[in-house]
């Protein structure tokens, strides 16, 4: 399948304009790039747990979704979609459905890294043919920017304040993409909206996978990360270039890097966002070194995984 821009812009749009996500929001870009990877001859069923994407695209009596769409509670997009997929497979087997359907969940990092992890793990282990996409904006943005399991150490959020007693989030984030890969499912990838061709290609692979696929996409949020709204793509690109958000895929157990980067110091990336501004003052500066060390260690580990034959 083509990933040429001239071809991609001809594809049908499944998320219509006019939704009420913020200008400069990464989430709608994630959805559009992922769904550009859908084959032309299939129908889509989207599951979407509560979050920014859901509340802003389905304000009653309107919907932005030009597909079948199921909203579910915060913790169970993977379960809801498992049920829909299982019913479809049965009806298909019985000859009651002729068309080909594909099942895609879009969950935020709150609904995926934290409260939805159990449901996700179950769905991946059972082997449903579905694609779970995490649009990762590294905090609970819909409820007012609270820290999540994806929030980077040192980051300010409304529940990881900085001041006399705290320098932002104390803990490092969890590596959810590796956790998904540890389920030994056919396809796992990490993507970024700044690298659209890479992401569309990963989506195409996920759609072609006969089994579960998981894609974790960095989705910058200017409200929560505190940067000018027009910089969303630029910030996403800096995350990739600094290797704090490396792009890779795990295809049937084989790890490989999918973007060539000249690794930049993470400081430039952190400097671009207000959520890290306090790290550049006084004693907090030592946290910058810890973040860089964490990035280096994770990057080394990833490179080793990708070198293995």
């Amino acid at each position: 399948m083509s990933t040429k821009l001239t071809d991609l812009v001809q594809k049908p749009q499944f998320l219509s304009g006019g939704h009420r996500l913020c200008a400069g929001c990464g989430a709608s870009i994630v959805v559009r790039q992922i769904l550009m990877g859908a084959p032309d001859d299939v129908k889509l069923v989207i599951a979407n747990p509560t979050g920014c994407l859901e509340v802003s695209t389905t304000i009653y009596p309107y919907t932005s979704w030009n597909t079948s769409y199921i909203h579910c509670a915060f913790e169970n997009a993977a379960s809801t979609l498992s049920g829909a997929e299982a019913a479809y497979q049965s009806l298909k087997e019985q000859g009651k459905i002729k068309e080909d359907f594909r099942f895609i969940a879009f969950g935020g990092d709150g609904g995926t890294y934290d409260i939805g992890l159990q449901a996700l793990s179950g769905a991946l282990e059972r082997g449903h043919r579905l694609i779970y996409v995490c649009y990762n904006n590294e905090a609970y943005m819909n409820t007012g920017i609270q820290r999540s399991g994806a929030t980077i150490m040192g980051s300010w959020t409304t529940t990881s304040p900085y001041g006399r007693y705290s320098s932002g989030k104390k803990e490092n984030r969890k590596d959810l993409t590796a956790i998904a890969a540890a389920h030994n499912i056919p396809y796992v990838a990490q993507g970024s909206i700044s690298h659209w061709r890479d992401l569309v290609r990963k989506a195409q692979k996920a759609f072609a996978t006969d089994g579960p696929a998981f894609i974790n996409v960095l989705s910058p949020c200017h409200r929560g990360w505190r940067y000018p709204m027009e910089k969303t793509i630029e910030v996403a690109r800096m995350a990739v270039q600094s290797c704090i958000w490396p792009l890779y895929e795990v295809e049937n157990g084989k790890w490989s890097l999918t973007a060539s980067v000249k690794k930049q110091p993470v400081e430039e990336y952190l400097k671009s966002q207000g959520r890290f501004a306090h790290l550049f003052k006084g004693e907090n500066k030592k946290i910058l070194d810890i973040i860089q060390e964490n990035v280096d260690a994770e990057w080394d580990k990833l490179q080793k995984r990708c070198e293995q034959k």
Partner: protein
Amino acid sequence: MSERQILKGCVALAEGAIAAGYRFYFGYPITPQNDIPEYLSARLPQVGGVFIQAESEVASINMLLGAAAAGARAMTSSSGPGISLMQEGLSYMAGSELPGLVVNITRIGPGLGGIAASQGDYRQATRGGGHGDYHLIVLAPNSVQEMYDLTIKAFYLADKYRNPAMILADAILGQMKEPIFLNPPPLVLPEKPWALTGARGKKAQLIKSLYLADGEMEQHNWHLYEKYRRLEREEVLVETDLQEKMDVLLVSFGSCSRMVQSALDLARSRGIRVGFLRPISLYPFPQQAVREVSREVGKVLVVEMNTGQMWDDVRLSLYPGCRARLLARPGGGIPAPGQILAEIENLVKAGDGIDESVHQA
């Protein structure tokens, strides 16, 4: 007496909890109660406390259970869907007789519903909510001052009865700002000889809700039953504003009762003789007070922001022959004082023997 300040309901509640000596918060984001964890994430470290954001409400309630078993005063807060996820843990806490405070800043249900205020969680809160034969102690503030005062009270009742307690407020009470005095009562933390604080030099203890021996679980349920009867005898909280020879008695709780109080003033200014009764403890429900007051007045108007949940408790408590009508506004709407006044006037005109019908505000 402290200086008068203007605080948001959620913040007043958080300060009340700190005044009650609590130092452990476990919670998970959900609107419209996020002001509580956000405030406490900065405030608790200042008083040597611990703030933990859990990965889910299931985790929050079980962290509360763990802290309670260790003898700590602990709290979690959430709203509708999150409180639903906590029900298993609440049942375990009630079964294990562990105290703790759960704050429900309610929103509209069922399902995702919406984030505006509703009183639709009354039944879940007062009947137990989870599996098994138990109650929560449920207190319902109707002002920012009470968000503070009743939070302190709820901690004391929870410890006294070794039972989880709930503050049932709503989006209005959580989000509105009002003048308030912060007057903490002297802090006396009760001894908790049952708490799991280590067995060095003393007998090992066990806290559980599983009783397998023949008849043991039955005995445990009767023990809990006695505790709830004692609560009903000794801990009822109710506010009344009564007159001689009343035409109508108004019954309402929480934020809704504020609108009812406005309607009460309007009615009295027109010469209608109206009484007002507000259950503050929803469990134990003021059955006796409703029964006694309704004896004096034949007509009762219950006003609720749901389709009639406390109405059931009122009708169970009425003096024989007395009838209660319901004025209801579910789904995020708020009854206007004028609508309540109109209903009062209808009742006055209706003569004796009104029907128990549901009217939409």
